[in-house]
């Protein structure tokens, strides 16, 4: 594939990815979607999960994202996320801690509590991170 599309993954802290890539696959709220060069302008919120892309050398790479949304333009994909890390940067120990904490809280709280929802989201994040870190 000759033509490349630009992928940017940005968090409030820094640029996580800024590369020319072949294809991007991201987890939209309604469903996973792939973007190649020349995509129709498209805007969606993202689920907590993994953005996959194939870099310029044809290698598949993975980025964890949570709390984000994506904008696709014909020549560019921008992912804005509250947190995002490349697979190799995931802190497994921290994610495991977070998972445990969330599970403990879920065991205690009542289902309608805000804290319960928050713990659920945290758990989802932790599991998603761990899943990604575990796949090689």
């Amino acid at each position, binding site marked *: 594939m000759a033509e490349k599309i630009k992928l940017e993954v940005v968090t409030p*802290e820094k*640029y996580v990815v800024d590369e020319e890539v072949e294809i991007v696959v991201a987890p*939209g709220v309604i469903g996973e979607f792939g973007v190649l060069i020349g995509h129709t302008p498209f*805007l969606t919120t993202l689920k907590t999960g993994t953005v996959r892309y194939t870099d310029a050398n044809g290698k598949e790479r993975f980025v964890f994202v949570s709390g984000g949304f994506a904008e696709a333009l014909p020549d560019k994909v921008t992912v804005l996320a509250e947190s995002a890390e490349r697979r190799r940067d995931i802190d497994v120990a921290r994610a495991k801690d977070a998972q445990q904490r969330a599970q403990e809280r879920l065991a205690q709280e009542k289902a309608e509590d805000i804290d319960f929802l928050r713990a659920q989201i945290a758990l989802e994040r932790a599991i998603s991170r761990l899943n990604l870190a575990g796949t090689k």
Partner: protein
Amino acid sequence: MATLKDIKLKIVGVKKTQQITKAMNMVAASKLRGAQSRMEGFRPYAGKFAEVLESLAEKAGEETNPLLEAREEVKKVHLVLCTSDRGLCGGFNTNLIARARQFIKAKNEQHIDVSVTNFGKKGRDWCRKQGLEFQSEYLGVVGGSFGFNIASTAGQALIEGFLNKTYDEVHIVYAEFVSMARQTPVLSQMLPIMPIASTEAESEQEEKPYLAEHICEPSAPELLGDLLPRNVYVQLYSALLETSTSEHAARMAAMNNATTACKDIIGNLTLVYNKARQAAITAELMDIVGGAEALKG
């Protein structure tokens, strides 16, 4: 002569103060660098976010969102006051608090109640002293290294309060980092969110035609409903970053002044000390000469 020793002690004391202020200056300088780089790191996100929101707001058009609606009758407003936790930073907090006081006074004159959310201890202490109603406080945020999650947690609370009509408007007072030498207190409205389309619409002229054709998933109004709260977090986060950077810059300047002042004082005291020493020596010499003369006679 006792005064000689007093002066000496005083010089030593001022020297120690100078050491401290110098150290604080350097600490502030290194923290400032960190804060500044974080501010710069946030800029692309904020920029992209504003871009997307703008194009989306255009598309969603007249679709109203509760966060955009101005209330007809404003009975109660909420103020987010960002100050530092620690002092020794010149007029930094005083300026911020003065801005807040001005705002609160103006609102009270219109018979509007004001409640406050505090970031930073100095503002909190002030509110407590004034007997103002403050809802929540976040200490140890400004000036430290905080994540985006603080802004989103606090932002969520603000949005909740706005939606359940605890208050009808939310404003924020923070320190804008203009330059190393200038940090100005700024007051801006957070909720209801001001019309977005008007901001910097000019610069994006050439991109507009196709931005308008975005496919949205879910629908544009829904997407807007998802992004608007995030806009509040972004605003809050950037205000906190600005305030932190400003705090360190203000402290650096204040400590720089203090170090210079110490230097001046030490100079003056040394002068006084030398004079006193000279006077003592002269007096002793006079004594000896006088004594010798007396023996001769």
